[in-house]
C-alpha cells in the first residue's frame, strides 16, 4: 500500500516513487507544480453522443475543446472523463459505445500561478495565452502528447501518459527555474 511519503497517483498500486516522480510539489516565483492524486479516467467513444450520455448518465460537452463536469470533448466522437478516484461508469455492454477505464494510463499535474501560461508555452506550440478558461485539448509539450486543460486564468491541468511523466515533470521544473 502507498503511504504518505509515496502518494498513490494512479491505480494498479502505482506510486510516484514507482514512476521516479518527486513526491513533493515544486514552487518557484509565481508558479506551483503539483501531482494530481489518483483519479478515475475514462476514454469515451461513440458516434451517437446522446446514446453515450444516456449510457453513462452524464451530460457531455458539445463542442470540441469544451469541458463539462470533468468531461473533456477531445474529438468529434471522443471524450475523456476525469472523475474522482474510485468513480465508475456503466460500460454499456452491447451498445455501440466504448466506455473504457484508462485510470492507470496517465498521470496529471497542476500548474498554478501567474506564470503558468508562460511555463506551458516553453514547450507547447499552442497559443496558450489565447486559450479560454474552461477549454481543454490534446496537444504536445515538446514531443510528448498531453491533454491540456485551462481551469482558470492562472491554473492549468496537464495529463500525460505515465511513462512520459518523469520527463515532463523535469522539463516543467527546468522551465520554471528559467
Amino acid at each position, binding site marked *: 500500500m502507498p503511504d504518505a511519503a509515496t502518494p498513490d497517483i494512479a491505480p494498479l498500486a502505482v506510486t510516484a516513487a514507482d514512476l521516479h516522480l518527486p513526491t513533493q510539489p515544486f514552487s518557484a516565483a509565481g508558479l506551483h507544480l503539483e501531482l494530481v492524486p489518483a483519479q478515475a479516467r475514462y476514454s469515451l467513444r461513440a458516434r451517437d453522443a446522446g446514446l453515450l450520455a444516456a449510457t453513462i448518465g452524464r451530460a457531455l460537452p458539445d463542442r*470540441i*475543446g469544451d469541458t463539462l463536469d470533468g468531461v473533456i470533448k*477531445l*474529438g*468529434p466522437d*471522443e471524450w475523456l472523463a476525469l472523475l474522482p478516484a474510485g468513480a465508475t461508469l456503466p460500460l454499456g455492454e452491447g451498445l455501440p459505445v466504448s466506455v473504457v477505464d484508462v485510470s492507470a494510463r496517465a498521470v496529471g499535474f497542476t500548474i498554478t500561478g501567474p506564470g503558468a501560461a508562460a511555463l506551458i508555452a516553453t514547450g507547447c*506550440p*499552442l497559443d496558450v495565452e489565447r486559450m479560454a478558461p474552461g477549454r481543454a*485539448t*490534446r*496537444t*504536445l509539450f515538446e514531443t510528448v*502528447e498531453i491533454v491540456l486543460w485551462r481551469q482558470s486564468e492562472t491554473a492549468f491541468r496537464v495529463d500525460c501518459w505515465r511513462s512520459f511523466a518523469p520527463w515532463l515533470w523535469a522539463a516543467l521544473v527546468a522551465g520554471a527555474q528559467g
Partner: protein
Amino acid sequence: MLLIHCPYCAEARPEVEFAYGGQAHIARPLDPSALSDADWEQYLYIRNNPRGRHHERWRHAHGCGRFFNAVRDTVTDKFEVTYPAGEAAR
C-alpha cells in the same frame, strides 16, 4: 510556424500536431482482382506531383485524431482550404 486549420476543431493549430497522409481522393477499387496489373500499379503507386494545388490527406494526430482533406500549394506551402474527409474535392 505553419498553422493548419482543422475542420473538426474549427481552429488553426500548429503544424507539429498534424501528420501528413499522402494524396487525397484515391478510391480503393471495389474489385481489386478484376484489375489489370497496370491498373493496380496505378492505384497503388502512382501519385500526382503537381507544382501548385495539391489535394492531400492530413490527420490531426495530436489533437482531435481525425483525418481530413486539404488543398495545399506545393510552391508556397499555403493551405488554401481544409474540409472533412468524405466531402467532394474542393
